[in-house]
């Protein structure tokens, strides 16, 4: 098995896929860093101070003004109210919700990238792993060796897991290294409030506690990794089922984007919570953002994703072992 995994890693590295992904991530981070920098600068100009409390106070006032307009969907109103309450909590306890620094940028980036961007990067590897062998024709050589088919697929799957681990780490390291040039390499120990629970538009602060940013960052990374593994496994399944890499990628892309759209409108369609793409914003549970559908919890989301993961894995293996190769 170790030999097979080394084969797959050799092919992956020779194709320079990880390098390409690294470049994409770096470009995006530079863009985001610049945007963030511009925003901070503009805010400072507008408020006449770089005191974060003033900025947060102003955000609260802005949201409250939006809330006072009568024509607003109830669910949006609830979400805004939740945000106000959390911001107010931060303000009341004199804790900066976004302590400037590369560590904060990294956390924000990873949280925002968790449901679309990182899954997309993972797809670049996952969609290609099996279908590229089919389209190149090398599958015929691979499957006429004295190695059982499930072992070959398993080696590919493990390679996928390994590359996901690298991609997640790479995103984190690049975000920290590149944004640090502008924001400074600090913020690891900034206090962060976690443990907000949101129910029916109310923020329950009874469970809150203070943790250091690096702790939250690591937890975020764990969750993002899990999301990436689930999405990667689904793309992997499509790669087994469909010979053509672009077709598989297209299907996954459609699913991910529909998930992003659904998140904004499914609150009244309760059974939508069984879709994998609605459950991708796991990091929101930690930061206390209201879930898209009432009643969703971290555990339910993790379990729903787990079921999708397991099903995709089973289908992949059964199909791969049984299929005739033409």
């Amino acid at each position: 098995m170790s030999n097979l995994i080394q084969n797959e890693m050799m092919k992956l590295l020779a194709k320079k896929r990880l390098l390409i992904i690294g470049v994409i991530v770096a470009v995006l981070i530079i863009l985001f860093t610049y945007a963030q920098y511009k925003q901070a600068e503009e805010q400072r100009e507008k408020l006449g101070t770089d005191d974060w409390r003033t900025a947060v106070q102003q955000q609260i006032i802005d949201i409250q003004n939006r809330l006072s307009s009568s024509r607003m969907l109830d669910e949006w109103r609830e979400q805004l109210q939740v945000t106000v309450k959390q911001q107010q909590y931060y303000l009341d306890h004199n804790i900066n919700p976004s302590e400037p620094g590369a560590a904060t940028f990294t956390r924000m980036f990873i949280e925002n990238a968790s449901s679309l961007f990182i899954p997309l990067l993972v797809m670049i590897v996952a969609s290609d792993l099996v279908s590229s062998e089919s389209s190149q024709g090398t599958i015929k050589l691979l499957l006429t060796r004295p190695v059982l088919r499930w072992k070959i697929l398993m080696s590919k799957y493990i390679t996928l897991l390994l590359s996901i681990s690298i991609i997640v780490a790479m995103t984190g390291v690049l975000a920290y290294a590149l944004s640090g040039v502008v924001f400074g390499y600090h913020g690891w120990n900034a206090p962060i409030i976690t443990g907000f629970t949101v129910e029916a538009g109310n923020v329950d602060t009874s469970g809150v506690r203070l943790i250091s940013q690096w702790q939250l960052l690591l937890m975020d990374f764990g969750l993002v990794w899990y999301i990436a593994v689930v999405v990667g496994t689904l793309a992997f399944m499509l790669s087994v089922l469909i010979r053509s890499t672009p077709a598989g990628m297209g299907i996954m892309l459609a699913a991910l984007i529909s998930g992003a759209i659904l998140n904004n409108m499914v609150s009244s369609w309760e059974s939508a919570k069984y879709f994998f793409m609605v459950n991708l914003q796991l990091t929101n549970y930690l930061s206390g953002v209201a879930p898209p559908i009432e009643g969703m919890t971290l555990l339910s989301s993790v379990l729903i994703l787990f079921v999708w993961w397991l099903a995709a894995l089973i289908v992949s293996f059964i199909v791969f072992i049984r299929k005739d190769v033409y």
Partner: protein
Amino acid sequence: MMSNVTLEVNSVRKTIRKREIIKDINFTVRKGEVFGFLGPNGAGKTTTIRMLVGLIKPTAGSIRICGYDVKKDYKKAMQHLGCIVENPELYPFLSGWNNLLHFARMLPNVGEERMMEVVKLVGLEQRIHDTVKTYSLGMRQRLGIAQAMLNRPKLLILDEPTNGLDPAGIREMRQFIRMLAEEEGMSVLVSSHLLSEIQLLCDRVAIITKGEIVKVGTVSDLLSVQERMSWRVEPIELGKEVLRSLTEVMETEDGYVLTSFDEEETPKWNKALVKHGVKILEMNRRLPTLEDLFLELTDGGGAGIE
């Protein structure tokens, strides 16, 4: 008794969506022989070969490689097999050496020495560390054979091995395959849709069409039945008459007279023609085309099949 047989195919069938693609195929390949698998495109050659190497699962029947059932003893069966199915599709982004390393890692007990050996065997020492992208088709073909040889197979299956090669390459490939059979004692199964190639390369041949094997035999047996002599004579009517008195005669559209080919009889016919004052402009030994052969074997020529 089994030790002499490297491939044994027993009543193999394949049905896809209720359509029978392969209907009851039986044949054996013996040690040290080059076995031809001849048939037009679409006859089921590729499907059969893919079943032999385990890519497609037969609906019924059994395939044994060196006595190991491909279905039940997959690993052991595959250990004795080397194959190239269709084109030798290797990883273009890896070097030749890394391609070999890749496949060597999937085999038990194949180390760098053996890899060096096969590289020398196919004569790729100079370019083995270049990426496969830069190889010519002939070099890819040779690398493909090198990877097939890594595990010292007892049976080598090559699907259309001369496809796309230039004449020099084809000749080289032929010599190489003969060498493997004669010197290394390997069995080689070669598929082709070209009769001439099978004739030059193989000891025995199976002819397949529409999913069925219509004939298995030695190449000389098969072809002698079908070989013709073509004559261009003047005047043609007289010549035909003379030959008809001696043997069966047919006439082609472009003015040739066809008789059967018989080394002993031909000089006599020749003499008779000359005696009757017929001028012989041309006489040729003519190999049957594959189409002729199939026509002969499947329809009209019941006599050709024993």
